[in-house]
């Protein structure tokens, strides 16, 4: 369960405040698949950052799996992210100095989980990169890098997965395949997915679409089953 209550985010620019998000509220039940869409500058990425606890709202509350993110400090949120949250980014965000397997291991190791390497291999197998574990990110194609990132996102069996334009840097075909993978892993693990995109086709695959414009929710629609 992810709850946003009257979430506002303001930035100071010079001597006046600019509100990027203006009182956004919604609830996403466990296991849901929600797309947040909107034009460039509508506040999508800012909202994602707030929902995932990467940033704190100026006003309002974000409650993730029962924990009020706004009442926690950064280190507490980091801990919570490590336990319950997975990320997939547009630019993959793999650590360049680690191999594919080591990248997948990171969240497990940060949690102090034993047998991280074996679990990482298992996940790489699952995303079809069982043979590529010893390669560094720069030795992998964009699609492969994103699959490593997906394996990493599911390493700690997250309660909720945030994906920021996950296919934005990939060609159309690769994008579709990567997204299929994301969806199937989600079904297996029963996680909640929050997808930020401006790709209309991708958004249509979500069960629910929240549309933002100018920092506010303009529509919140359930897809017809």
């Amino acid at each position, binding site marked *: 369960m992810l709850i946003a209550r009257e979430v506002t985010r303001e930035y100071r620019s010079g001597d006046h405040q600019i509100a990027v998000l203006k009182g956004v509220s919604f609830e996403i039940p466990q296991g849901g698949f929600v797309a947040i869409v909107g034009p460039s500058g509508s506040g999508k990425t800012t909202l994602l950052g707030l929902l995932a606890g990467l940033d704190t709202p100026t006003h309002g509350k974000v409650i993730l799996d029962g924990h*009020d993110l706004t009442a926690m400090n950064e280190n507490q949120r980091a801990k919570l992210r490590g336990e319950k949250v997975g990320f997939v980014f547009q630019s993959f965000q793999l650590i360049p100095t680690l*191999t594919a397997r080591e990248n997948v291991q990171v969240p497990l190791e940060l949690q102090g989980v034993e047998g991280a390497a074996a679990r990482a291999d298992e996940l790489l197998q699952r995303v079809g990169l069982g043979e590529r574990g010893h390669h560094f990110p720069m030795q992998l194609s964009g699609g492969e890098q994103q699959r490593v990132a997906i394996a990493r996102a599911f390493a700690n069996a997250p309660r909720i997965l945030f994906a920021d334009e996950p296919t934005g840097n990939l060609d159309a075909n690769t994008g579709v395949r990567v997204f299929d993978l994301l969806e199937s892993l989600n079904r297996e693990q029963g996680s909640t997915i929050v997808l930020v995109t401006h790709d209309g086709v991708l958004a249509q695959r979500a069960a629910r679409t929240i549309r933002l414009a100018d920092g506010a929710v303009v529509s919140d629609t359930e897809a017809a089953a």
Partner: protein
Amino acid sequence: MTGSAPEFQQRASLRQLAGLTWRESRSARRRLLLYMSAISLGVAALVAIDSFAANVTRSIREQSRALLGGDISFTSRRPFSPEQQALLDSVKQQYNAEFSRIVTFPSMALIQRSGGTRLVQVRAVSPNYPLYGIITTEPADRLVALQTGPNVLVDPSLLVSLSARVGDTLSLGLARFVIAGVLKDVPGSPGVAEIIGPRVMIPERYLPETQLLVFGSTAEYDMLARIPSGADPQKIVISLRPQLERTQLRAVSATRSEENTTEAIQELSEFIGIVGLVALLLGGVGVASGVRAFVSRKIDTVAILRCLGASSGQVLAMYVAQAAAMGLIGAVAGAALGVLVQFGLPSVFGDFLPVDVKVTLEPRAIITGILVGGWIALIFSLRPLLALRNVSPLQTLRRDADSEILRMRWNDIPRVLVNVALVASVVAITVFRSSEVQQGLWISAATLGVLGILTLSAMFLSWVARRTLRQRWPYVVRQGVANLYRPANQTQSVILSLGFGAFLITTLYLVQSNLLNRFEISAAGSDANLVFFDIQDDQLPGVDSLVRSRGRVLQTAPVVTMRIAAINDRRSEDIITEERLRRAADSLVRARGGAAADSVEKAADARRRGGAGQPSGRPSWALRREYRSTYRDTVTSGEKVVEGKWFGASALNSNSDTGEVSLDSDVAGELNVKIGDIITWNVQGVEIPTRLTSLREVTWARFEPNFFAVFSPSSMRNAPKQHVILASVEGNPVVSALQRDIVLRYPNVSSVDLSLIRETIERIVTKVSTAVRFMALFSLAMGIPVLFSAVAATRRDRIREGVLLKTLGASRGQIMRILLAEYALLGLLGSLTGMVLAIGGGWALTHFVFEAEFTPALVPAFLIAGAMLALTIAIGLLAGRDVFRETPMSALREA
């Protein structure tokens, strides 16, 4: 359950974190190690000098008795008097001591076959010499043969300079000897002494035959004692103190002489060590800017790690561990280099040292070097590393500029703590390395002050650049100047490392050149090249006319030996005793562990070495020493009356009971006497009172006979005396012939060819300046990685921007000119600030520490500044070259 923090379960184990740290460091290790190498040279310097000093100290300790020649050495400037002999006999009885005798004096040696002459140091030794240590000869075991007849053993240099060989006949005075062999290794003889006067060792029993030791001859009579029982020689010396003083006999124990020698070595190594330490701090500055570069490369990784649940503490721990490990490796590499250097040092300094230095590994020096270096690397890295705590996971979604992300509040508590720890470490390490706390504090204050001034001048440069930039300037210049103040500029890090490097090198150079200036012989105005001394009264006319037949006599001076008997009616013994009591009382008050007697000794020693002592109280050395004085009616060109008046007509003509005396102003200071005081001199048994009427400043470096005390002629005319003649004789063959003729006719008259001494001094000066230049060069070598690190800190920004400009159509020339403008300005300000600070630092060191006059050597200083400027520009343009190596895509994608 909303609103509460989650219950934390077990987090990453240390092992897991360490594994992650190790893997994550993969690509950074080399780079980080490069930054850390900035400290390696500093550590190398510390380890080398500390190890070497420890080697020397240990060697001296092991060889101290051999160095002195006995457990105790009793010395007199005259043949032992009956009272002195009685005292020695009592020592012999009481401690069951064994004595060995040596008489040392200068004389001319003549090789009969070749006709060559040379001033030598004669050592007449008793059969049981040496009591300790081994003298090796060539052919072997000639020491035994020495005593079997009229034989001599000589230093190899004598054979070379007089084209003699073993078996030749050598004349000393009226006696003839056979050269039985060559002295290969004699304990306690630094090579330099040998160059000034080669040693000639003769059996004691042939000494009278030479007839060289006449009344007033310069000679030293040593009685070396071996104390077989376990008694501490130093305690014996202390217990004998009153009798020694009464009989005017000097005594030194092996322990004491060891301490004196060791202290000199310690002082030298302390100076070099401080240079090494400052170099290490410069390395620290380099590490800081290198790590800053490292940190900005790690922003993305840190943001990802934070996203994935790493706490800021974990992230910081990871990178601190990486930096510490690399710092430690840098320090260990430096220590290894230092050990290599240590093995080379004896060949550089061997000539200056009284012992054969046994080079062994000194674990203490090595460990200290590694710890100090590692700590400096760590504490200087911590400052930039702390910024990584601020990296928000949000950076994975939306990347800000590096400088924005890494900005820290000035009052950020960990940052303040690190700053305090940094300053405290610098002060603690400096104080720990200095012999005196105050000195350490001064050095650290100066170092921090220099860093502060450089930071300010960097800020000033940014400010001026912002203020003066004009739109009408050519684009490339505008861009270059704007680089000095725009966000993420490198003005501060470059000015700091460059300026500090320039400061260090220039200070070293200036101090060196000013110190060596003192030794430079003011040959101008004096063309003297030959000195004859020990000329007896009746020999003077003969020697004088012989010299005049070959060249010019520049100066003739009578020499009278004397001691101070009383000052203003207070006997000098009383003054000494009183002084001793006062000091003993002082040290008893401060005594730690009841070492009062020792403290008295040490205080006296410190004074003897000319340490900055308290002006009040008369040091016993100046009171006890033997003065070789002269009398004359004029002031020579090498001296200047600074207080009082030179002898007036009355002093020159009258025959009043109280004559007049003029003292060297330093000695007067040590004696604590002032114009008008009455000093009574003991001139070989006769007491002569004189009034102090003037103080002179004497240029001792000139090759002229100079004197602490000069008397009005009337007061000393009848005293027993010898004479010195300073002459100018042209042409080497003429000089040698004259020396030979004088020796043949007046065997007791010695002569010195000043050109030989000049050469010797020049050789020593060259050696010393080579050593100092080596250190300066070493600091320069150290400056290069530091400067590289400073530039590396913003290299990525530079390249990214250059590539962008290139993409937008900038030519290679334009980009190079932008970089040239920026680095030329940085280099100019950095090196000039460093130079100005160095002139201040050089003055302070020369003035306060070495107490010498300071003249800034501006030309070399500017040359050094120019070299630093060129180096900066070269490094800057190297970064520019990388701009053209990168493809636009790779650089832009990285951004």
